[in-house]
């Protein structure tokens, strides 16, 4: 290694050579992540089409995010998606994990491998699979027809009332396994005598859940919510591949609007504004969740 220093003291001792080790990583990070983020903040104050000279507009792009119906809609849809990506999987995960935790079932390892699988498959592939399931001649409609509910069939991703929940359900499918695996790991760490004490006190499954299980996995719940809420806010490929924000703009989300405003409409300043707002929201939410998680735990 280039960094051949004279023998020095134990770790933790002040050492200038640290800068040299950090430098390469920091340079790439600064040039390709940090600087662009600052540049986004700067560009968000301009009206710029990406080609000609931009005009300074102050905060009016931010005003547009708050007032434009479509952009406000994008953030509102992100909120709805949070329910599907975070809240429902959390409920599903809590129920599943506590049921499975109570009884030692065989094949839990295999189960974990299978339900975690969606996490490693590219979102584009997932979108291709679910488009087929939701298609007018797809799986759901065939099942509905087969059981005599033909009147219920529809193009799930193409109808105003159903498109957003349909996309959301993909998120529920995607995140439920992750949350379940995470909670199972948390429950496995709860000392057995807590459960035994609860049972000696005559607690049933439900009491046991609220008195022992739930308080013990608060940390895991905070982690699960952080991961899934951020995933909901960063859903770009799923929207791009399933609905492109339609029909109308019923399924558009902030990350999709960033792409659309910048590269389809030439509103680069506004696109950066949306990106900055999205970043602020993500930081704020994860800060709140960790804070609440910490306080409850401590």
């Amino acid at each position: 290694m280039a960094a051949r220093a004279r023998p020095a003291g134990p770790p933790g001792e002040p050492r200038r050579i640290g800068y040299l080790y950090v430098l390469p990583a920091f340079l790439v990070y600064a040039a390709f992540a940090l600087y662009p983020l600052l540049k986004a903040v700067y560009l968000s104050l301009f009206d710029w089409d990406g080609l000609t000279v931009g005009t300074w507009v102050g905060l009016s792009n931010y005003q547009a995010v708050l007032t434009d119906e479509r952009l406000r809609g994008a953030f509102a849809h992100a909120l709805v998606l949070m329910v599907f990506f975070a809240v429902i999987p959390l409920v599903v995960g809590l129920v599943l994990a506590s049921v499975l935790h109570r009884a030692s079932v065989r094949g839990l390892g295999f189960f974990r491998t299978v339900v975690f699988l969606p996490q490693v498959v590219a979102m584009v592939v997932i979108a291709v699979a679910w488009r087929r399931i939701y298609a007018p001649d797809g799986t759901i409609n065939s099942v509905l027809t087969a059981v005599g509910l033909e009147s219920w069939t529809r193009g799930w991703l193409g109808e105003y009332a159903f498109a957003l929940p349909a996309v959301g359900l993909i998120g529920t499918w995607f995140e439920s396994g992750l949350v379940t695996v995470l909670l199972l790991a948390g429950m496995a760490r709860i000392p057995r005598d807590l459960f035994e004490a609860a049972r000696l006190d005559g607690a049933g499954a439900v009491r046991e859940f609220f008195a022992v299980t739930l308080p013990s996995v608060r940390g895991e719940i905070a982690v699960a919510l952080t991961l899934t809420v951020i995933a909901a806010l960063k859903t770009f490929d799923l929207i791009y591949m399933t609905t492109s924000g339609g029909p109308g703009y019923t399924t558009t989300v902030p990350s999709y609007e960033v792409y659309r405003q910048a590269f389809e409409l030439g509103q680069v300043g506004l696109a950066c504004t949306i990106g900055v707002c999205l970043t602020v929201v993500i930081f704020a939410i994860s800060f709140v969740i960790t804070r609440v998680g910490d306080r409850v735990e401590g």
Partner: protein
Amino acid sequence: MRVSRSERTTNYVILTAFAVFAVYPILSIVVAGLQPDAAAPGGLGNLAQAWEIGRFGSYLRTSVLVSAFVVSVSTVLSILAGFAFGTMRFRGADALFYLMLIGIMMPAEAIVVPLFFDLRAVGLTDTFWAIALPQVAQSVAFGTFWLRAAFRSSSRSVVEAARLDGASTGRILWQVLVPLARPAIVTLVVLTFMWTWNEFLIPLVMVPTNEALRTAPLGLGFFSGQYTQGYALLAAGATIVALPVVVVYLFLQRHFIAGMLEGAVKD
């Protein structure tokens, strides 16, 4: 814990139902990818056909090159930075570290727009570097954070013993600490590989016209928009795109699960 027989049966039913729900969309695409239709011969021939018609051969090549570059460069840089942050004290170390932590949560959506216009100004869009370097930056943020924790927890006495033997800083890192941190490094490698392989937005934006540089997910995205003669080849293409990560996952699933779950918890 002892539970009744009926509760156990219920558990197996729930377990199976949920596993089927989780795996059905993925299996359905594999099965559909093997069906014959007008443009597809059926069976494994579909994969070959998609390879040709859908140009998945070329897309996979790009993905392999990008992933190999991002994984190797970001892992080495993360080892160096994680070592410094984890075992040394220097002025501003905390501030620098927190600055890099921002990168873990920073959404690609926020940086991709300014990055595109800056790289276009210097003629770097539609190049390999435009896809790879932003992803190195993002991976390095997580990698530094991840390996700092790993090096911190590695035994101090080992490091001190090596020091007393007169080992240089570089030797201590590569011959003592890196072997000790191997599990954490493997986890980092598989996670970076997965994130890079599956990345969609950055290649989509950074390679607007150069078809030869489309990555596998991006190629699938375009293929699904243009190819309308049936579902079999599209599904076969999707299978090709998903397969490499799934195979690695099946062998190293502990690393995937531990990394994705602990990555959010550490520290």
